[in-house]
């Protein structure tokens, strides 16, 4: 029988914090500026410049630490991590090694048969590096330091995950917590959340871990799953062939669906950390921790319970509504206007999810306003438009955030509540569809459907189908 292997995975997750300025200087962190426009002597590593710590970075890091059940390190400090690379203008990165801001936490994830804790080893604050753009034509690279000094927290888990599903649950959980705290938008695609995967395999039942590799450059949930499967297979193959897994850093290439070793011997990983002399220690009082705790916004679990109680929506609906901060905000804002929570939830679960899939976008990218969705709910509820028109209008709200009242007015989509017009339409339909009329009268209940359809067509979709049905039955008596 073939040997059974278990995958052992730990993650290092980098999250860009949502501060307005960089970690050690007053430069903007705004994304997308022209190259090097958000720079100063500090974040370009000019001699003689001195870093000053952004207080908000400490507070966000504390908030994430507390929300993930960590112990806050009440005397913490920064260290220098030395390496030479053009994206790193100081030739060191200011990070935390010896006394990171938070340690020994956990998050709970949902797995197949229940819940599981993934322990957090530690969480530290550090600065991001610049960005390298490789010139296709010249044999050169261009360096943009706008991102240099953008604050990051790195969250290091214990090797507690055993499958790509568990890894994705863990990441989604972290993302939700951090988004709800407002500490980051956590967009994998834009790089504000990045995961490095430490992975090893061992025979099921083995006491010791196998040799692990670290994979970098993975920027979507799908890519993470593929990278994990790929690396697991690669390591098992090595072991089966009697070869060794080498401890190394590998870069995942999602286009080729394979990884390659990143650092050669010439780039030995020896960072010669030492305490950062340009920054003084941070002393965090009990009061400060209590203050951050008291400011903690409602997190997902609490929100979910509240939605069930306050809005009387089912568990399933509440789970989807709280599945992302954007969705929850949209749900609450829309409900506040139209006071129809279940109907709002139905739009967000049904058509919204369907269109998100069709347009391949995430909840965070939703652009429509609660005002317009609320109007649509009220229009539908009042019978001013029927459900198929409502779906059509919703698609326009979803893509262009149109005002539904204006839109149905312009397009003449309002349901005709004029009984006279409906009656004459039905008369015409009855006269022209003798066969269906006979079938219905002969007891074939289904035949009414064809007549409703014909009437709706004659009314250009602007009738209420329930009413058409009712009138038809009445007139065919």
């Amino acid at each position, binding site marked *: 029988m073939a040997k059974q292997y278990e995958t052992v995975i730990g993650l290092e997750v980098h999250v860009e914090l949502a501060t307005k300025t960089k970690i050690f200087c007053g430069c903007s962190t705004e994304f997308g500026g022209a190259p090097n*426009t958000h720079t100063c002597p500090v974040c370009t590593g000019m001699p003689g410049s001195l870093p000053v710590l952004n*207080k*908000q970075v400490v507070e966000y890091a504390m908030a994430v630490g507390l929300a993930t059940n960590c112990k806050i390190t009440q005397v913490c400090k920064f260290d220098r991590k030395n390496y030479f690379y053009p994206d790193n203008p100081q030739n060191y990165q200011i990070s935390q090694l010896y006394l990171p801001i938070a340690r020994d936490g956990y998050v709970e994830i949902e797995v197949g048969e229940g819940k599981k804790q993934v322990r957090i080893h530690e969480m530290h604050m550090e600065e991001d590096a610049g960005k*390298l753009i*490789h010139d296709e034509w010249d044999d050169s*690279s*261009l360096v943009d330091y706008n991102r240099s000094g953008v604050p990051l927290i790195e969250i290091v888990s214990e090797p507690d995950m055993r499958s790509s599903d568990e890894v994705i649950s863990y990441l989604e959980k972290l993302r939700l917590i951090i988004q709800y705290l407002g500490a980051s938008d956590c967009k994998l695609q834009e790089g504000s959340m990045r995961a490095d995967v430490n992975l090893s395999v061992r025979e099921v039942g083995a006491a010791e871990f196998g040799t692990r590799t670290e994979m970098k450059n993975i920027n979507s949930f799908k890519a993470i799953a593929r990278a994990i499967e790929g690396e697991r297979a690669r390591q098992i193959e090595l072991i089966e062939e009697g070869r060794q897994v080498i401890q190394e850093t590998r870069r995942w290439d999602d286009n080729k669906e394979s990884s390659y070793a990143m650092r050669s011997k010439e780039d030995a990983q020896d960072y010669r950390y030492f305490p950062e002399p340009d920054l*003084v220690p941070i002393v965090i009082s009990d009061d400060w921790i209590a203050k951050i705790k008291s400011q903690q916004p409602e997190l997902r679990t609490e929100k979910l319970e509240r939605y069930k109680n306050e809005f009387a929506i089912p568990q399933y609906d509440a789970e989807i509504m709280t599945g992302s901060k954007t969705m929850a905000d949209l749900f609450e804002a829309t409900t506040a206007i139209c006071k129809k929570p279940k109907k709002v939830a139905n739009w967000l679960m049904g058509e919204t999810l369907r269109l998100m899939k069709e347009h391949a976008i995430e909840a965070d990218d939703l652009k429509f306003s609660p005002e317009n969705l609320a109007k649509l709910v009220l229009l539908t509820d009042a019978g001013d438009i029927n459900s198929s028109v409502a779906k059509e209008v919703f698609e326009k709200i979803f893509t262009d955030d149109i005002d539904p009242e204006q839109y149905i007015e312009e397009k003449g989509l309002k349901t005709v509540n004029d009984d006279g017009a409906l009656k004459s339409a039905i008369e015409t339909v009855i006269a022209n569809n003798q066969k269906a009329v006979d079938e219905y009268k002969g007891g074939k209940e289904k035949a009414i459907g064809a007549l409703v359809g014909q009437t709706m067509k004659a009314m250009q979709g602007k009738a209420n189908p329930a009413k058409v049905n009712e009138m038809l039955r009445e007139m065919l008596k």
Partner: protein
Amino acid sequence: MANVISDETIEYVGILAKLELSGAEKENAKQDMEKMLDYIDTLNELDTAGIEPMSHVFPVNNVFREDVVTNGDGHEAALANAPKQKNNSFEVPKTIG
């Protein structure tokens, strides 16, 4: 004069510092490093038992700035001394990692 720096160590430190050293430079660097380590040995003669490691020379904590943008467009100053530049960026030998 107890410390001896091996050829391997000097080679390794050279790799970390991204420096290519000639034979003579290696010998000089070895001697310098040996002297530095000897000096540290002198410091090690002090009895530091029971003394808490110091993380900073100043008795100061919690120096912060508020999260307010104070700097404007700094690209001209940043690039002023760049040996090579292109498209508002520093131009460096092709580096992929």
